[in-house]
């Protein structure tokens, strides 16, 4: 499993990117989607996910919607207009960081990463 510290640093970007692709998602669904996309390599813990979701909501990047599902109430998160704008800048930031890391780790390799 990947290091928790590395995941924590990019958690907000992961959430924003997933919501950009999936319109609306609930907390547990996000953890499962990340697990599925990374074949279990990255596991987002509840301890990190919910504070990040609540923070993004407070910053106005996410909005919430409540729906009755089966025997309970479910809280869905989706991107606000500001959140949609933020996705591309966060992704560009992460991409630049990964490229810089590549140059440090492997100076001979020219990275060509795409998100």
């Amino acid at each position, binding site marked *: 499993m990947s290091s928790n510290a590395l995941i924590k640093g990019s958690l907000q970007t992961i959430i924003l990117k997933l919501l950009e692709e999936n319109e609306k998602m*609930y907390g547990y669904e996000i953890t499962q989607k990340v697990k599925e996309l990374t074949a279990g390599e990255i596991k987002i813990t509840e301890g990190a996910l919910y504070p990040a979701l609540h923070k993004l909501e*407070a910053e106005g990047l996410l909005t919430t919607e409540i729906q009755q599902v089966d*025997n309970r*109430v479910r809280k869905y998160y989706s991107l606000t207009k500001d959140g949609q704008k933020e996705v591309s800048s966060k992704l560009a930031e992460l991409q630049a960081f990964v490229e810089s890391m590549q140059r440090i780790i492997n100076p001979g390799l020219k990275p060509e990463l795409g998100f």
Partner: protein
Amino acid sequence: MRKLSEQELKLVQMAISEKGINSAELLMEVYDHFLSHLESFPEEQFEVQLNSLNLKWSKRYCAKLQDNLRKNLNKTVRKIQWNLIKSYFSWPKFFITLLLIGGITLLINLLTSKLQLAILFSVPLIYLTGFLAMVLFRTHQKLKPIKSTFKDSGLKINSLYSSYFITYLTLPFHFYNICLNIPRILKANQLVSDELVNYLSIGFCFIIYIHAITVYEAWKIKSKTALI
């Protein structure tokens, strides 16, 4: 994916009740997380999975999460309210602001008795009281499903948004007491000249009106999606 039995649901509710969460916003999210997780495992693994969830969602972690959520919700509403206040000082709403100040100034200059002045102040206060009653009623309606799910838990479930709005809606009443009633009790009201009282009245009245309008607009935005 399977449906949990009544017995299993009761066990989940009991486990969550012990976490001491009383915010409806967090409670519904934790409950949904627990159920979504447990539904993806067969019946034989229910106990093991519930125990693992219990360990991850410790009482201490839940308390911290609830505290952070409270801060974040307050921040969200304050941000909405501040943006609304700012909009009243930019075109075209600035025109309404000028009209409001002009109207209040004119009214206060026209008023001749203290009773008339009291009426001017009491209009937004009466409006806020009615609004407060509506917020309480709407919150009560929205919390019904969550309260009924956890009815045996003994938890005192509240909406964090509702607590925030109630506090802010009652602010002008404290303000009224501090600025008008306390000086009167201390017989300090004669220290301020009548002319200054007029300017203060315009200022206070304007603040109360802007406060009442922005709280209502912030509530209108949040009530579409939140438990309020």
